[in-house]
């Protein structure tokens, strides 16, 4: 398998299978283009501890063919792209050659490149890229991709003084789309992104000239994820072959200890011995059969330590709360972060928030759940009821928390971050029910629900106390009046003294017996039909 063939195949593959990655209709493509570009920009910022400022302008290109044509411009303040990398970063569809693990929104930026490709295919548009890493120069490229050969074609290249000290990337191109139908999803996308990124500033100007603006509300941001080597439990044959291609002439033992996390020389030796591999064999000499055996052994060997979670970047309790508070304005927020766990060598962390009351409305129909799902800080907007988070919420017995799911104003926020989020589809719309992830979601939601119950109980107690005082006061003032009349006094006793702090006792247990006058003794009111009137009835008609 030659590398050339591989690359050509990738560009061609995406071109022919655009529906698989979510570009299956003009309006879906519009949404995907905005989303993929925003996500690349955000990765270029918060992945490098830069507070993101991302601006998107979408405008209509008039009189250009039968389909609606749009011009998109996105500007970020990320780290920018080095001059020499620009043509390949934007003009060639490729897999990265470096195998490392780190939480990212996109996997290898494929979605972003698909967006550019889509513009080129539908609108015959070249891509204009302006970038600087903050140095003295600013570069502008006009490029396209030769789809057959999967190579970048540079049409124009300019260099200028970076007078405004710009750092980041600006991308512009045209595409055919349908904003009218995509509008709601795009707005929802920005809204939900702002929920988990209170430290980002997001600006969107739509083709109608409407401005959507989410200012930055905090300077705090989570630590960016660190790059780590892959964990041996997550390896597959394809990946192993590629890694060998990069390091063909090392011994198996050295190869393992250099290319995988949690594998030192000693661990590698122990692993190879227990699985009957020769530690000194050169990796390029292993045949496919041996490699398959190696993959199985790596995945199943029980003595590797769990994956290193430093490659993850959860949102964190505080930022999650701030984001939720800003956009949902609830009365109560509880958030839970679970400790890192792993599935198949991929570390993941589950974060959950439950927001209650305030501006949140109760469900408008039974069975409806207000759920905001995120994976690696990306909002998931489609197929909500197929998502594992939804099935977990629906499977929990909410009576246990005295919460009537169909009546109470609740919103759930779930975030799964991982080096490899277990999406069910290529379109990244919902998270699959992996048992490990499902269990963590369940634990997180239950933990949050318990905390919410405690909060609600406190609130209910306060309300109860207030209501109780109101009821007591009402009836006691009646008693004051009645007893004054019965006792033939002139002045009513003052009941205010009863309601001074500290006098109201707790609910008393002094009831000697429950009062009820129903009896199981001979009932005097029963009577034969013709004597019905003769019953010793004490009720009067």
């Amino acid at each position, binding site marked *: 398998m030659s590398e050339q063939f591989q690359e050509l195949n990738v560009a061609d593959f995406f071109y022919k299978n655009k529906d698989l990655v979510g570009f299956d209709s003009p309006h879906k493509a519009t949404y995907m283009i905005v989303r993929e570009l925003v996500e690349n920009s955000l990765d270029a910022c918060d992945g490098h501890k830069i507070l993101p400022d991302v601006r998107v302008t979408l405008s209509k290109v008039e009189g250009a063919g039968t389909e609606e044509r749009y011009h998109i411009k996105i500007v970020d303040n990320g780290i920018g792209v080095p001059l020499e990398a620009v043509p390949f970063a934007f003009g060639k569809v490729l897999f990265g050659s470096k195998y490392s693990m780190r939480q990212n929104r996109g996997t290898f930026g494929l979605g972003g490149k698909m967006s550019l490709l889509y513009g080129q295919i539908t609108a015959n548009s070249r891509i204009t890229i302006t970038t600087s890493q903050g140095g003295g120069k600013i570069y502008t490229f006009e490029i396209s991709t030769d789809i057959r050969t999967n190579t970048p074609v540079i049409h124009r290249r300019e260099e200028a003084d970076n007078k405004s000290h710009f750092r980041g990337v600006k991308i512009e191109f045209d595409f055919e789309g349908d904003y009218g139908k995509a509008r709601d999803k795009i707005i929802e996308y920005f809204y939900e992104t702002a929920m988990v990124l209170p430290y980002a500033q997001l600006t969107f100007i739509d083709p109608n000239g409407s401005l959507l603006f989410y200012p930055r509300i905090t300077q705090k941001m989570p630590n960016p994820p660190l790059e780590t080597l892959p964990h041996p439990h997550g390896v597959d044959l394809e990946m192993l072959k590629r890694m060998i291609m990069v390091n063909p002439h090392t011994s198996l033992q050295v190869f393992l200890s250099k290319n995988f996390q949690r594998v030192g020389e000693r661990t590698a030796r122990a692993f190879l011995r227990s699985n009957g591999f020769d530690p000194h064999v050169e990796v390029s000499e292993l045949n496919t059969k041996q490699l398959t055996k190696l993959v199985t052994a790596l995945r199943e060997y029980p003595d590797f330590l769990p994956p290193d979670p430093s490659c993850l970047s959860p949102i964190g309790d505080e930022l999650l709360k701030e984001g939720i508070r800003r956009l949902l304005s609830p009365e109560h927020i509880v958030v839970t972060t679970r400790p890192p766990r792993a599935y198949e060598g991929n570390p993941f962390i589950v974060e959950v928030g439950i927001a209650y009351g305030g501006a949140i409305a109760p469900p408008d129909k039974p069975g409806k759940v207000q759920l905001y799902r995120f994976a690696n800080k990306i909002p998931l907007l489609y197929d909500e009821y197929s998502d594992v988070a939804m099935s977990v919420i629906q499977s929990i017995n909410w009576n246990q928390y005295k919460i009537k799911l169909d009546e109470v104003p609740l919103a759930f926020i779930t975030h799964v971050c991982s080096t490899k989020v277990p999406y069910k589809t290529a379109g990244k719309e919902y998270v699959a029910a992996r048992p490990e992830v499902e269990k963590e979601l369940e634990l997180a939601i239950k933990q949050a629900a318990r905390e919410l119950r405690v909060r609600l109980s406190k609130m209910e107690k306060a309300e109860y106390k207030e209501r109780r005082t109101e009821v007591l006061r009402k009836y006691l003032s*009646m008693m004051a009046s009645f007893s004054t009349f019965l006792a033939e006094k002139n002045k009513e006793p003052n009941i205010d003294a009863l309601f001074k702090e500290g006098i109201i006792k707790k609910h008393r247990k002094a009831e000697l017996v429950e009062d009820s006058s129903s009896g199981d003794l001979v009932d*005097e009111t029963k009577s034969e039909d013709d004597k019905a009137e003769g019953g010793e009835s004490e009720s009067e008609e």
Partner: protein
Amino acid sequence: MEKRPDRSVYARKALKDLGTSIYNQLDVAKFPEVMIPSRQTNNIYYDPKLEQYVLGSKRVVRSADNIKHVKPLAQLLWVARIGKELIDYDRVSTLRDLFYMSKNIDINFVTQQESDEAVYDLEALLSMPRESFNIFPHDRGAIFGDLTVRYRVKGFKDSLINLTDNPDGVNIGPALDNAELVKTTADKVIAIEKGAIFIQMIREKVHEKFNAILIDTTGQASRSARLLIRRLNEELGLPVYILTDCDVWGAHISMVIISGSVNSAHITGLNTPSAKWLGFWPTDINRYKVPTMKMKELDWKRLAELKADPRYKEKFWKEQLDAFERLGLKAELEAFSSKNKSVSQTFLVETYIPDKLKELGAI
């Protein structure tokens, strides 16, 4: 002979005491409470000495600082207030009437059941029937005979009335309930289960023939009727005889007059322990050979209930219940008409009643 004073005097005092107790508790910034005898079945006992059901020693505390109690307690006091007003203005009311009256104050009786309960609680708390504070059942039952009474009702005060004045008898109502029983020439009381026979007996001058005061109980005697019977017995010293159909229901009408009812266990002084069931006994069936009917399923069920009741443990009553069980028959008082020689000479009056009065040693 013991004269009973105007019982509204007692009632007014009891209501004032209750009000004062609540007032004083409120006045010292204490959440008021009362202790009401429990009317629950596990607190109802048969008292062989009083020969009636009574409440045991269990008490229910109703405290105003208990959110569950504060409303019933206020309701109880509201009933007390109405009771005092009824006495003060010499008005009468009924349970139903009271329920409707509650609608113009935010006292929240949801059903009449609830306001009835408040009345029963007040009865139990004061150990007084509600008639004492002028809450009456609809008139049921009538009285006829040479009895002179003095009413205490406004507008009729001090007027003496003889109860032979009305040929249909006089309703046993609120006025009679609290009237002073002044004098009588009668030497016994005959209570009759059926209104038609009561009227028939007046026409046949049974009151004169047997020197008796006649009372129509109209089935189970109302509490007013039972109270009146008790007073005739207690205040005027008249023995009481009860005439009913020959069935388990008739037996129990007698029993309630004699030993009281479970429902009224919280009130003493309504029963007449010395009263006697004059007839028609099941043991009389074979003696008089009148038409009978077979006991129905309901009769058998009732018989089983009565056999388990402590009030029927006495030898006489056991024998009567056993007779029902043995014969499986029942008969009505009207069955004696099958033996009448003419409409003016009824077997019931000419033969049966004198036979039975003799048997019980009344004449």
